[in-house]
C-alpha cells in the first residue's frame, strides 16, 4: 500500500511538472499573441489531465493547476484584438485539438466567452457544451470536466434578471442545463462503484465520497437560481432530481443526494413538497440509511418551526405530522432488520418535531409513544445501551417541554414505554421524573394521577424481579430513597377526602418497599398524614402503628411526635408506653439514649392530656431512665431536666414545688458523685459546670415562686461552687468561671430591678 502512495506522489509530481513545462511555453505564446502556439501548448498541458493513475484527491491537485492556467488562457481568448480571430471561429478552431479531453476543456473555455459575447443565445452554447462532454465517460476525468463546465457557466445562466435572459433564453433553459449536467455527473459518479478490481470496495467508497461535493454542487446552483420558485421546484426541479436519485440505484449516491436536497433547499419548499420527498424514501435501496435522512429532515423542520410562530399554520395546513408519521411507519416496516436504536431515534426526531410544531396536540405525542411501544414489543429483550439512551431521550422530551409532569401522566403510552426499559434504565428514568417534579415545584393533586406516578417510579419503590439491590452503591441508594421521600411532600390536595385517598395510595406503594426502603419513606408519609390529621382535628389515624422494621430511633421519634399530636389520653399513653419499651429494648447507643430521653422529657413536659395517675407513672419512668444513663454528666442533666415535669407554667398546670426540689437534689447528688470520681481519675471534664447548671435551675424555680427553694439554699450552693473552684485552682475551668460570673451578674440584675422581683432577690446574699 505504501508503494502505491509513493507511486502516486511520483505521478502527481510528474503531472505537475508537465503542466508547468507546457504552461511556460503557453505563456510565451500568449505574450507574443501567437494563437497557434498557445493552442498547441495548452492542449499539451491539458493532456496531463488524461491520466488515470491518480486518486481523486491527487487528481484534484493536478486539476487546480490546469484550472489556473486556463484562466489566463480565457483572458487571452477574450481579447480578439490580440489574436484577431472571432469567437465563433475560435469555437470551431479549438475543436481541432487531437485528444478529446483537452479539446473539451478548451471548448468550454471558449464557450464561456462565446456566451458573454452574446453572439449566440446562451442556451444554445450551454446545450452544445453539456452534450459534447458526453464524450468523456471516464468517471474521474468526466466529473472534473463537467465540474469545470459548471464553474465557468455559473454566472452566465439565463436566470431572471440576468443579462442573458431574453426571448430565446429563459430560466427553464438554465434549469435544464444544470439538471442535465447533474444527471450526467451522477451517472459517472455511480459508475465508479463498478470500476476496477472487486476487492477494494472500501477504498472505492472513500474515493467516491471525496468527489461527492462535485455532484452536489449542481443542486446548490439550482437552489441559487432566482427563477426557481416554489412552483418550478415542485413541478420540475424536485421530480427530476428525485428521478435520477431513485433510478441510479446506488446507495452511496442516494444517501448523499437525499441529504443534500434537504440541506440545500429552503424549508418552506420541503413543507410544500413533503409528500413527494417522503414518497421517494421507500423507493431507495434497502441499504440506504433512510432513518438518518428522515431524522435530519425532521430536525430541520423542527428548527424551522421554532424559528417563528408565523410558520406554524403552514405545518398544520400540509398535515406534516401525519405525513411524516406514515413515512416513518413505512420505512420501519420495510426495513425489518433495522436495529432498535435506529427506529427509536426516528421516533425521538418525530417527537421533537411534534413538540415544537403543535405541542398542544397531546394525541400526537401519545401516538408517537404508541408507535414506539409497538416497535419495542417486537424485540424480546432490549439490551442495546444506545437504544436505551434514546428511549430515555424520548421519555424526557415531554417532561422538558411541558415542565409539568401532570401532562406527561395523561399520556396513556408513557408508562407502557417505561415498561420496556431494563431495570437500571427504568430507575434512571424514574429519577428524571422526580427531579422534574422537584425542579418545577409541581404538585400532583389527584389520587389517580398519584397512582399513575407510582406505577412509573415502581423501580425505586420496590424490588423488581431480577433486580439486584445489593449491586447499587449505598450512596446512590440513599439518594434514590431520599428523592422518593421528598417526592411524597409534593403530593398534596387541600381537600381532606382527596388527600386521604392520596395518602392511602402512597402507603400502599411504600409499604412493599421492604426493610431497606421504609426507613427513608415512612417518615415522610407519617408527617404527611400528621398534617392531614391536624386538618381533621382530633380524628386519630392508626397510620403510625405500622409493623415496619425500621430503625428503632426512627420509630421512637415518630411515636413521640404522634403522642404530641394526639389528644386522646389512652392513645397518647399507648404511644409513650411503646416508646419506653422501644427505648429499653432497642436503643443501645448511649448518645442516642441521651437524645431519646430528652425527646421523652420534652414531649411529656408539654402534654396536658394526662390525668394525675398516668402522668405520675410516666414521669416516674422518665426520671428513672434519666438516672440510669451511662455517663454521670448525662444523668445529672437529664434528671434536672425532669424537674420541669413537675412544674408547668400554665394557669392550671402542675406546680409541685416539693418534687421539683427533690429532683434538683437528686441531680446534686449525682453531680457530687461525678466530682468525687473526677478527683480520683484526675482531669475529667468540668463537673463544676454541673453545679453551676443546677444553681441556675434553683434560681429559675426560685423566680417562678417555688416556696421550697429558699434563698439560703441558693447561697449555700454558691458557696459550695466557690469552694470547689478554689480547691481545684491547679486546674482552673475558665468556662465554668465565666458561667458562674454571668449567673451572679444575673442575680445582681434581678436585685436591681426593684419591685417584687427585687425584693425576692434581695434575700440572696452574695
Amino acid at each position, binding site marked *: 500500500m505504501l508503494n502505491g502512495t509513493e507511486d502516486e506522489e511520483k505521478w502527481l509530481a510528474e503531472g505537475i511538472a508537465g503542466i508547468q513545462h507546457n504552461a511556460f511555453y503557453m505563456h510565451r505564446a500568449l505574450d507574443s499573441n501567437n494563437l497557434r502556439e498557445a493552442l498547441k501548448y495548452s492542449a499539451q498541458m491539458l493532456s496531463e489531465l488524461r491520466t488515470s493513475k491518480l486518486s481523486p484527491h491527487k487528481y484534484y491537485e493536478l486539476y487546480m493547476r490546469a484550472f489556473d492556467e486556463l484562466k489566463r488562457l480565457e483572458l487571452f481568448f477574450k481579447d480578439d484584438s490580440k489574436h484577431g480571430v472571432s469567437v465563433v471561429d475560435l469555437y470551431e478552431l479549438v475543436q481541432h485539438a487531437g485528444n478529446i479531453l483537452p479539446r473539451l476543456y478548451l471548448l468550454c473555455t471558449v464557450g464561456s466567452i462565446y456566451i458573454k459575447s452574446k453572439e449566440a443565445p446562451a442556451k444554445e452554447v450551454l446545450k452544445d457544451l453539456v452534450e459534447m462532454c458526453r464524450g468523456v465517460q471516464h468517471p474521474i476525468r468526466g466529473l472534473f470536466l463537467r465540474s469545470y463546465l459548471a464553474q465557468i457557466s455559473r454566472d452566465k445562466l439565463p436566470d431572471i434578471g440576468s443579462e442573458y435572459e431574453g426571448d430565446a433564453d429563459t430560466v427553464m433553459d438554465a434549469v435544464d442545463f444544470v439538471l442535465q449536467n447533474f444527471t450526467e455527473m451522477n451517472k459517472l459518479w455511480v459508475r465508479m462503484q463498478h470500476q476496477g478490481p472487486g476487492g477494494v470496495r472500501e477504498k472505492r467508497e472513500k474515493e467516491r465520497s471525496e468527489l461527492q461535493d462535485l455532484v452536489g454542487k449542481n443542486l446548490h446552483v439550482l437552489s441559487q437560481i432566482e427563477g426557481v420558485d416554489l412552483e418550478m421546484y415542485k413541478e420540475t426541479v424536485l421530480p427530476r432530481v428525485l428521478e435520477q436519485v431513485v433510478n441510479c440505484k446506488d446507495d452511496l449516491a442516494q444517501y448523499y443526494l437525499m441529504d443534500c436536497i434537504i440541506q440545500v433547499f429552503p424549508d418552506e419548499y420541503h413543507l410544500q413538497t413533503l409528500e413527494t420527498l417522503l414518497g421517494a424514501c421507500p423507493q431507495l435501496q434497502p441499504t440506504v440509511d433512510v432513518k438518518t435522512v428522515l431524522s435530519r429532515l425532521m430536525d430541520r423542520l423542527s428548527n424551522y418551526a421554532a424559528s417563528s410562530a408565523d410558520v406554524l399554520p403552514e405545518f398544520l395546513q400540509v398535515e406534516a405530522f401525519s405525513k411524516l408519521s406514515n413515512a416513518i411507519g413505512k420505512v420501519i416496516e420495510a426495513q425489518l432488520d433495522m436495529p432498535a436504536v435506529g427506529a427509536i431515534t426516528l421516533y425521538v426526531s418525530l417527537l421533537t418535531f411534534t413538540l415544537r410544531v403543535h405541542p398542544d396536540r397531546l394525541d400526537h405525542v401519545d401516538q408517537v409513544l404508541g408507535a414506539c411501544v409497538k416497535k419495542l414489543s417486537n424485540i424480546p429483550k432490549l439490551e442495546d445501551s444506545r437504544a436505551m439512551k434514546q428511549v430515555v431521550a424520548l421519555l424526557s422530551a415531554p417532561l422538558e417541554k411541558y415542565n409539568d409532569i401532570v401532562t406527561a401522566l395523561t399520556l396513556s403510552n408513557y408508562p407502557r414505554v417505561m415498561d420496556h426499559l431494563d431495570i437500571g434504565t427504568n430507575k434512571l428514568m424514574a429519577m428524571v421524573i422526580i427531579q422534574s417534579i*422537584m425542579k418545577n*415545584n409541581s404538585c400532583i393533586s389527584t389520587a389517580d394521577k398519584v397512582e399513575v406516578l407510582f406505577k412509573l417510579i415502581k423501580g425505586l419503590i420496590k424490588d423488581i424481579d431480577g433486580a439486584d439491590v445489593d449491586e447499587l452503591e449505598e450512596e446512590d441508594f*440513599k*439518594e434514590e430513597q*431520599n*428523592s422518593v*421521600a*421528598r*417526592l*411524597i*411532600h*409534593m403530593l398534596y390536595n387541600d381537600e381532606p377526602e382527596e388527600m386521604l385517598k392520596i395518602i392511602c395510595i402512597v402507603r400502599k406503594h411504600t409499604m412493599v418497599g421492604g426493610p431497606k426502603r421504609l426507613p*427513608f419513606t415512612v*417518615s*415522610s408519609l407519617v*408527617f404527611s398524614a*400528621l*398534617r392531614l390529621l*391536624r386538618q381533621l382535628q382530633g380524628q386519630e389515624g392508626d397510620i403510625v402503628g405500622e409493623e415496619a422494621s425500621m430503625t428503632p430511633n426512627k420509630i421512637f*421519634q415518630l411515636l413521640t*411526635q404522634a403522642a*404530641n*399530636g394526639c389528644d386522646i389520653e389512652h392513645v397518647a399513653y399507648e404511644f409513650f408506653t411503646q416508646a419506653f419499651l422501644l427505648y429499653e429494648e432497642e436503643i443501645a447507643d448511649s*448518645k442516642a439514649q441521651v*437524645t431519646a430521653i*430528652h*425527646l421523652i*422529657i*420534652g*414531649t411529656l*413536659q*408539654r402534654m396536658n392530656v394526662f390525668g394525675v395517675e398516668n402522668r405520675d407513672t410516666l414521669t416516674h419512668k422518665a426520671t428513672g431512665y434519666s438516672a440510669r444513663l451511662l455517663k454521670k454528666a448525662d444523668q445529672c442533666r437529664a434528671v434536672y*431536666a425532669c424537674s*420541669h415535669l413537675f412544674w*408547668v407554667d400554665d394557669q392550671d398546670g402542675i406546680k409541685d414545688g416539693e418534687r421539683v426540689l427533690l429532683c434538683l437534689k437528686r441531680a446534686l447528688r449525682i453531680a457530687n458523685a461525678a466530682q468525687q470520681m473526677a478527683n480520683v481519675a484526675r482531669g475529667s471534664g468540668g463537673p463544676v*459546670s454541673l453545679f*453551676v*447548671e443546677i444553681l*441556675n*435551675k434553683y434560681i*429559675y424555680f426560685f*423566680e417562678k415562686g417555688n416556696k421550697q427553694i429558699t434563698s439560703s439554699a441558693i447561697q449555700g450552693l454558691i458557696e459550695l461552687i466557690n469552694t470547689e473552684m478554689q480547691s481545684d485552682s491547679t486546674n482552673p475551668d475558665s*468556662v465554668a468561671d*465565666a*458561667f458562674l460570673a*454571668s*449567673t451572679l*451578674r*444575673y442575680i445582681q*440584675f*434581678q436585685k436591681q430591678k426593684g419591685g417584687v422581683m427585687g425584693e425576692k432577690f434581695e434575700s440572696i446574699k452574695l
Partner: protein
Amino acid sequence: MVLVLAIGDLNIPHRAPDLPPKFKSMLVPGKIQHIICTGNLCIKEVHDYFKTLCPDLHITRGEYDEDSRYPENKTLTIGQFKLGICHGHQVIPWGDLDSLAMVQRQLDVDILVTGHTHQFKAYKHEGGVVINPGSATGAYSSFTYDVNPSFVLMDIDGLRVVVYVYELIDGEVKVDKIDFKKTATAPSAH
C-alpha cells in the same frame, strides 16, 4: 458589614421536600460571610447546598440529623460579637426563654441562635439576645399549627447587629428588622 445567615429546621426529606423557591432565589453564593445552622437539615444534600452558598458553615446537631458528628453546641466570634449555637431539643422546657437564657450564660455569648420550635423569635434579656430563625421550609411542628417558612440574616457592624427576618406568608416574602446594640457590658435593643 458582615452578613450572617441563621437558618435551620428544614427537616428535608421527612417533613418537607425542599426550600421554598422564593427563598432559593434569594440565597445566592458569595453574598454571605457566615452561615449558622441550628440543625435538623437532615440529609447531606442540604449540607452540601449550604456549602455552595458559603464555605464558612457552622452546624449543631438536631435530633433528626443524619450526620451524628455535628456538635451539640458551638461558639464563634464574629467581629465584636460572641455567638453561640444550640439546636434546642436538649433544653427543657422546649422554647422556654429562661432556660435558653441559662444556656446563653453557660456558653457565655452575646447572641444565642437556637431552633427546634419552628417559630421565629428574637428578643433580648439581661444576658444577651436569643434568636430563633424558625423553620426555613415551614416544616410540620408539634409546637404550632401555623408554621411560615422563615430565616434570619444578621448584619454585624461594630457594636451593632441588625436582625432581618424573612418570612414567607401566603406566598409573599415579608421582611422585618430589629436592631440590637452591644454596650461594654451587655446588649440592648431598640
